[in-house]
């Protein structure tokens, strides 16, 4: 409930919220620090921090490469917790962990929740953990009051959306299209129909991600979604222009 309330409070002043994505340790935790600073100072409302995994099945080439490079540089799960504790102490916006289930499973589910709670993490996005596979995960999420963010997709039936809503908390992550992260999405009539289906299936706020890259994309989501997610685009920006370019890019989006 904590995360949803935080987002609802922000929505009183803004017509759409912004969530951004970083891959921890890519290109380095120092650059992550600088990027987060610029994001928060320029109005980002929520940040998902990806703990790198060697097999990021749902990610496209940009984030895949970021995962591999971070791991090659030696990023450990322990470093991610230390970093999360530092950052969540410093900034007053919700921080989430995005990762794949093996990272949690291998750490020990309850230990992972405990450590994440201590590190100020408000929610988890785990793309390869459908609720059917996550019974103990969902119980622990409730126990530690960390929101499990569930995912809607254009292939989800109305019944499936309703079912997912019963397990979800904080907000629902609506994947804009089929495919992996990083490619452009079309926000056409079909998309509006899909978002309307999402809206009628849950009372939770709706975040829309995958392929959102510009002010126009975000403009198109206003009134239909509560939060827009920028993922691969800022990672590319840091690669091509450096961390210093992130602030003005974020500021230009709304």
């Amino acid at each position, binding site marked *: 409930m904590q995360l949803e309330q935080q987002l609802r409070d922000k929505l009183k002043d803004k017509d759409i919220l912004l969530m951004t994505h970083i891959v921890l340790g890519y290109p380095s935790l120092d650059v992550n620090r600088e990027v987060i600073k610029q994001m928060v100072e320029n109005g980002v409302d929520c940040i998902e921090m990806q703990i790198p995994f060697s097999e990021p099945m*749902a990610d496209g080439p940009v984030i895949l490469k970021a995962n591999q490079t971070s791991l090659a540089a030696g990023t450990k799960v322990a470093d991610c917790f230390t970093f999360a504790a530092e950052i969540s102490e410093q900034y007053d916006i919700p921080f989430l962990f995005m990762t794949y289930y093996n990272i949690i499973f291998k750490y020990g589910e309850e230990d992972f929740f405990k450590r994440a709670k201590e590190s100020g993490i408000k929610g988890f996005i785990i793309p390869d953990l459908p609720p059917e596979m996550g019974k103990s995960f969902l119980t622990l999420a409730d126990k530690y009051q960390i929101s499990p963010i569930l995912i809607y997709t254009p*292939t989800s*039936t109305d019944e499936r959306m309703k079912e997912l809503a019963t397990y979800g908390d904080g907000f629902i992550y609506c994947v804009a299209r*089929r495919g992996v992260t990083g490619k452009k999405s079309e926000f056409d009539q079909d998309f509006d129909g899909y978002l309307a289906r999402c809206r009628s299936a849950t009372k939770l706020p709706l975040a829309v991600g995958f392929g959102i890259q510009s002010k126009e994309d975000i403009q198109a989501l206003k009134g239909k979604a509560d939060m827009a997610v920028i993922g691969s685009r800022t990672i590319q920006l840091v690669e091509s222009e450096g961390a210093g370019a992130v602030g003005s890019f974020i500021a230009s989006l709304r």
Partner: protein
Amino acid sequence: MDQNGFFGNWGGAYIPEILHQTFVELKEEYTRCRKDPAFWQEYLTLMSTYSCRPTPLTYAENLTHHFGGAKIYIKREDLNHTGAHKANNVMGQGLLVKRMGKKRVIAETGAGQHGMATATMAAKFGLDCTIYMGEEDVLRQRPNVFWMEKMGATVVTVKDGSRTLKDAINEAFRDWVTNVDNTHYVFGTACGPAPFPEMVAWFQSIIGIEAAKQIIQYHGKMPARVYACVGGGSNAMGIFKRFLDESDVELIGVEAGGHGADSHAHAIRLSSPDATPGVAQGYKTMFLQDEDGQMKHTHSVAAGLDYVGVSPILSDLWDKKLVRFESATDTEVMQALDLTMKQEGIIPALESSHAFAGAFKEVGKLAKDDAIIINQSGRGDKDIFTIAHAFDDPSWKKFIIDRGKEYSNS
């Protein structure tokens, strides 16, 4: 398999939400097929007319005398169309794809045999086909790439991660989540999210069903032991399944020992302490991973065994001590291959040669009136570049150099 896709503690379906509906449909169609005797009959007819089923069970008389122990029988999956057991699974899934009405198939491949079989099936059934193959495997299995392309498939070289089988699987999943509406992922082994492990093992079970009948016919009783190599585990499950009910038959899975169990350059998941429980590529099993859950690099001379995970069904059988797991090193495998060629005039694939190496270590100690079956999952001529290289064969090298000169001058 329970309703969530688990075999004991292992398996499940850890899939991205975008695939949820397609898995619902796949499970429904698979369940219908299993209940429909006409489907299995159609499958048997296809396999006996398009492939060479039943494949022979060969008595290896010379090898038997060489070791002086139990009689050695070889189940000849190498005589399947496309040269390996992979066709059993692929043709079965092909019939399923036709029922589901999908127009495109994708597959991962390690040794290239599964990719070959899938490209063949796609050509026969008129489907578009894309095969994902790790860059390292493309280099060591070039002849299979050539044939896949000739049969009309697109072969995509995967340059991420360790550039082997697991990375090809990740890339195939990325394709699937993008093209889920018209595409079926022909998973190549008894791994991945449910229902794939059980479905692939079902199609492959034809191996053991035939072998049990044949050994009774030739030997008059059940074998003492059955040996199979274990990469993902589909040929092993295929021959083991029928014998699981026979309490006197011991089943032995032989994993890829690479440079040795202590070398950290191997693919031994179940017969070494290096692997731990994990969840990746859609399922839970024993993985070769570090303390953070990052997958490790594996090594085997055989591309098809060079894999971080293993069938969840085999992990369950290992848990329950119903299958014994051993390993064979690259060196032992080359020796077993050499011996088999010289003694029997049979060329097992490098993958299958692991089963031979495992059996050769033990067969001499068994009684002469017993028999063993070795599953020869595939033929070795696809490995000509790797085998010739490993044997450091001078006349082959000269041939390659001369041909290279010829091409570079033209």
